[in-house]
């Protein structure tokens, strides 16, 4: 192996190691700044504390404040500029493209989660949208009866029976949890770019896709986030609640859509007459 290749492989290995180790390091760091639980004799307050399941709240709030500043001075202005130069139609197509790009990852997550029908739907979506939908810019699969069902590695772990665990608010990444934080390294590897040969072109494409994904998603949430920040008494708690509810709802949808059904054309065999 040439020195150049060895250096590159070492760098890739270090990156992989960092991706795997990151959730553990984050968890340890976040849990070092823990909230003090109220006394159990104070029933209403203690129940609220348990329901929130946010023992790292003081640290989480620090990261929330930092992310809020980053968002205010960087992400939001960029997203507003993006909205000014694009139409809703363009943003929808960008959303379709980004969704299609993540579909192979979903196939794997669904298979590992024991959801073969959802995995089949994701496969059909990827094949149809990548071809008829011109690389995923259009989404004919939804019109054909294969709507998108979002998932990630955190939801796969949930299907294995692993509980959500304490709430975490991550620097840059935002709302997460002790279980969901493991989605980060999985997402890093499960993209169609991972098996592609390393080149400047794929690297530029990868960075561009990530940037477009971030900007397009932030643009979609300009109005709802503004509204929460203007109307919520405690926006941090509101985002925490929304995150938890959304995760529960995603899990419910995955289970709902994986229910076996009989196609209209299928004639059930009649019982043999005795």
């Amino acid at each position, binding site marked *: 192996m040439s020195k150049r290749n060895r250096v590159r492989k070492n760098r890739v290995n270090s990156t992989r190691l960092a991706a795997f180790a990151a959730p553990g390091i984050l968890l340890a760091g976040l849990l070092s700044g823990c909230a003090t639980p109220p006394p159990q004799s104070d*029933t209403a307050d203690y129940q*609220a504390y348990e329901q929130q399941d946010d023992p790292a709240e003081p640290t989480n709030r620090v990261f929330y404040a930092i992310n809020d500043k980053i968002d205010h001075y960087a992400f939001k202005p960029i997203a507003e500029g993006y909205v000014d130069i694009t139409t809703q139609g363009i943003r929808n197509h960008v959303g379709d493209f980004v969704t299609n790009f993540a579909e192979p990852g979903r196939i794997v997550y669904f298979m590992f989660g024991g959801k073969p029908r959802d995995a089949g739907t994701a496969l059909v979506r990827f094949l149809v949208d990548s071809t008829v939908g011109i690389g995923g810019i259009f989404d004919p699969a939804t019109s054909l009866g294969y709507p998108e069902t979002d998932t990630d590695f955190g939801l796969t772990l949930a299907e294995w029976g692993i509980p959500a665990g304490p709430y975490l608010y991550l620097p840059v990444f935002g709302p997460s949890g002790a279980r969901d934080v493991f989605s980060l390294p999985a997402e890093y590897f499960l993209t169609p770019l991972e098996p592609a040969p390393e080149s400047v072109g794929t690297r530029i494409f990868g960075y561009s896709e990530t940037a477009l994904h971030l900007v397009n998603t932030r643009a979609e949430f300009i109005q709802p986030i503004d509204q929460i920040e203007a109307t919520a008494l405690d926006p941090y708690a509101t985002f925490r609640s*929304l995150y938890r509810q959304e995760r529960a709802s995603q899990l419910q949808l995955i289970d709902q859509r994986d229910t076996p059904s009989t196609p209209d054309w299928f004639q059930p065999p009649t019982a043999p007459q005795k």
Partner: protein
Amino acid sequence: MHLRRTILGATAALPMLAALPAHAQVAPDAAKAFITQSGQQLVAVVNSNASTAQKADQLRQLVDQIVAVDTVGDYVLGRYLNVATADQHTQFLTEFHQLLSYNITYQIKAYQGITFTVNGATVQGNDTIVDTTITRPGQADADVGWAVDEIGGAPKIVDVIVAGTSLRITTRNDYASVITSNGGQVSALLSAMQNQIDRIKSNQ
């Protein structure tokens, strides 16, 4: 252990259940008709040529007619309904009405040009959920569910559900966080709500 907790929880919740006004399920067709009519009224107000102040007044009246504000308020106060004094409860409901009105007013401009389609209705637990699709110019379509209950003999909206998230649960968690951050004091929530009202008033 779990059974003991459940029984203790149920016993603790009994006074709250008794405090809630009697409500019954609404048939899906009736709920759909109610949301269709309410939605048409709402769209007519939002898209009218009236001034923002006039629209806000009309919307406040409409909200009082179609939303079970007191029932939602008690749900939002949750377990602290037992902790609050009668005066605090009254003050909470007054402030809750005001905040709801201001929050709706805040969205008037964002909802200009709105149209909506009623898709269907299903019974889920005590509520009948009416699914709608809301379309706004320059925005992605939004699927919104309206939870309808019969309260005081008439159908009323008790919750709004967007992408699997319930507005009343989110608000309850928001308010509970303010109380727990202030040592379980309901008075802290009332002050925070009043500050919010004052802030919105000064910005208008």
